[in-house]
């Protein structure tokens, strides 16, 4: 039960309460740029969810096994080179560079894979993939996972692959929810009489502000659910 509670806590938190767009302000560019049509927005949401999961898997693996202080692979190699050394090797300075290349190559890989094996899917959201390389939502996902590996106050609190993936997928879903809602609203706004200076990005940001207010209603829901599940 405790395990389920922790998973629920992470997923509700990432998808709704601390929504990537509305709380952490990451992925604002696609949120503003690709939210004109519902189908496009939904495609973008799916693409982000997909890529963020793969990037989360890869970055967790690298961080956990290679770059964190005392990571097994690095320690083992260090041990081979310097037998008997007690030093804890910390490669976390390389994290950012590794993440950005992990993201770029997973986008490339996903693109190739889809094109080859799922042409229909590729057609549906392949066009969004290149846009995602420079999307900060993905990098943000990697950074949060890093925080919960290298920044954990005790080894027990360190995120395993399961939690990292739950976080990434939920974050992606939260992004998809927000961008699809926004696209629905913007389609409607095309038929409204929005003041000229606010057209486009201005009204999108204002609507995002109201959506952020609405999403604040979820504050603490994770805590409530956890309490219910632990009872």
């Amino acid at each position, binding site marked *: 039960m405790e395990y389920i509670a922790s998973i629920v806590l992470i997923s509700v938190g990432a998808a709704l309460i601390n929504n990537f767009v509305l709380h952490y302000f990451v992925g604002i560019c696609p949120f503003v740029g690709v939210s004109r049509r519902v189908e496009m927005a939904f495609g973008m949401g799916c693409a982000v969810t997909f890529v963020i999961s793969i990037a989360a898997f890869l970055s967790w693996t690298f961080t956990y096994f290679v770059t964190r202080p005392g990571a097994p692979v690095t320690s083992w190699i260090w041990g081979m080179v310097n037998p008997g050394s007690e030093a804890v090797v910390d490669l976390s*300075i390389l994290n950012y560079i590794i993440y950005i290349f992990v993201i770029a190559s997973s986008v490339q890989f996903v693109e190739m894979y889809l094109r080859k094996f799922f042409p229909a899917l590729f057609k549906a959201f392949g066009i969004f993939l290149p846009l995602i390389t420079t999307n900060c939502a993905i990098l943000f996902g990697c950074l949060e996972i890093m925080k919960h590996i290298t920044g954990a*106050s005790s080894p*027990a609190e360190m995120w395993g692959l399961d939690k990292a993936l739950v976080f990434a997928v939920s974050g992606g879903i939260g992004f998809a929810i927000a961008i699809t809602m926004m696209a629905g609203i913007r389609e409607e706004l095309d038929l409204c009489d929005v003041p000229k200076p606010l057209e486009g990005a201005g009204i999108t940001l204002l609507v995002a502000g109201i959506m952020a207010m609405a999403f604040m209603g979820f504050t603490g829901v994770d805590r409530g659910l*956890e309490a219910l599940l632990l009872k």
Partner: protein
Amino acid sequence: MTKDQSGNLLGQAWLVLCLSLAFGAALAGVEIGLGPKIAENKRNETFGQIPSLVPGAASETSTEAVMDGMAVFEARAEDGSQVGWVVPAGGQGFADRIEILVGLDLPAERITGIYVLAQKETPGLGDFITDEERFRHWYRNQSTDPPLEVIKTEPQPGTGKIMALTGATISSDAVTDIVNRSVAEFKVTLAGSPAASGGA
């Protein structure tokens, strides 16, 4: 762009390699130069609070310890003698996780103070839990048994009661909860390791 220069694939590869080496060197330099300072900052974040959490303790002499899987700090006076404990703890607050440090006297019978390391409560409301004057002072000199209780009216200091922040009962509850839980856990740990309780 000059074609003849960039046409050479091998040259390009070398270039990228050299660049990577240069960047690598720069990063290594930064790490060597700044690494110790950053490590010190991180240590200070917790150790720096110890003097204010446990009367008579100094941050330089205090040490980290792992007791029964629980990471704690042994608060020590200038002369190295142990004067109390600092227990790190965390839990869900109103908005996000709250991380705090709880200072205890040597037998873990009294709370000597708390400090909030990290929180994302609402500014102007829940985030007053970080404030000594408004909130944290209620924890000073409270007995660790029975558990602390949050009430809405002003209590006598040191009577096991904590006064909730106006409009932020949830945050106040959360902190008190975290304190109660971590103290209870620590007392069990302490009781189970007589060697450690010997201190000094």
